[in-house]
């Protein structure tokens, strides 16, 4: 049963991701990105990490995609036939497939040190405990990074005199 759910979720993730890189309409690409990222949230639930699934839905499903959609709206040129893909498309496909082949070769050849079909549930509370004790300093630094990045984003996108 879990296996079936995994294949459904993996199908959603991969189909959404393929849509993001292949469709001709930028807004459809952004909407398919939401589908793919929500599928990743489902994968987190299958890995029994509900906390990350919630964070994924909040930050990726909400904030990031709204930002991307706004950026698409504001960078729209009048012409309908925008050039979205470069001439190097076939080369890019070859490179990506070669990378995928290398990954598959690596995965099939690796021998794992212990029984890897057993999943251990990490309790919700333990994650918070670790985040605020053992990883407290990186946590605070991350909040500083967020603050600086957001102030920087405001400063960069501010309209100056003489600009359109």
């Amino acid at each position, binding site marked *: 049963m879990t296996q079936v759910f995994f294949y459904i979720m993996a199908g959603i993730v991969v189909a959404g991701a393929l849509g993001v890189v292949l469709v001709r309409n930028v807004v459809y690409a952004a909407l398919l990105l939401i589908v793919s990222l929500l599928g990743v949230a489902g994968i987190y639930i299958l890995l029994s990490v509900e906390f990350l699934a919630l964070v994924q839905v909040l930050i990726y499903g909400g*904030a990031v995609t709204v*930002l991307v959609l706004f*950026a698409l709206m504001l960078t729209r040129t009048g012409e309908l036939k925008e050039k979205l893909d470069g001439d190097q498309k076939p080369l890019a496909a070859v490179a990506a497939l070669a990378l995928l082949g290398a990954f598959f070769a690596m995965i099939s050849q690796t021998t794992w040190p212990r029984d890897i079909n057993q999943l*251990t549930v990490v309790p919700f509370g333990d994650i918070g405990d670790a985040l605020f004790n053992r*990883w407290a300093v990186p946590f605070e630094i991350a909040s500083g990074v967020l603050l600086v990045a957001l102030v920087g984003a405001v400063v960069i*996108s501010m309209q100056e005199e003489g600009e359109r």
Partner: protein
Amino acid sequence: MESVHASIPLSNFIVLSSILFSIGVYGVLARRNAVLMLMSVELMLNAVSINMVAFAVYTAPTFFVGIIFAVFVITIAAAEVGLALAIVLRVFRNRGTANVDEIDTLKW
């Protein structure tokens, strides 16, 4: 710590994550619109997160560093998207395009 016998092997998650990462690589290389390239980067970041979380819960559940790292990846990705889209907006306002092939001022 509670142990659950799951029928999904670890390799399934790794295969999914490598497929997602390759799709993201294709997107970054093939797309020329800056916002679409950023979306492909998001796909790659998610692939890495899946990989780290899967390894954390299957092979090192006592430390689960992978889960903590995934939290930080999501945080940094949010900061990165905000900054990068601000830069794209600024470039678009100054040059009238979001196509990365036409933004070649530094090309000598």
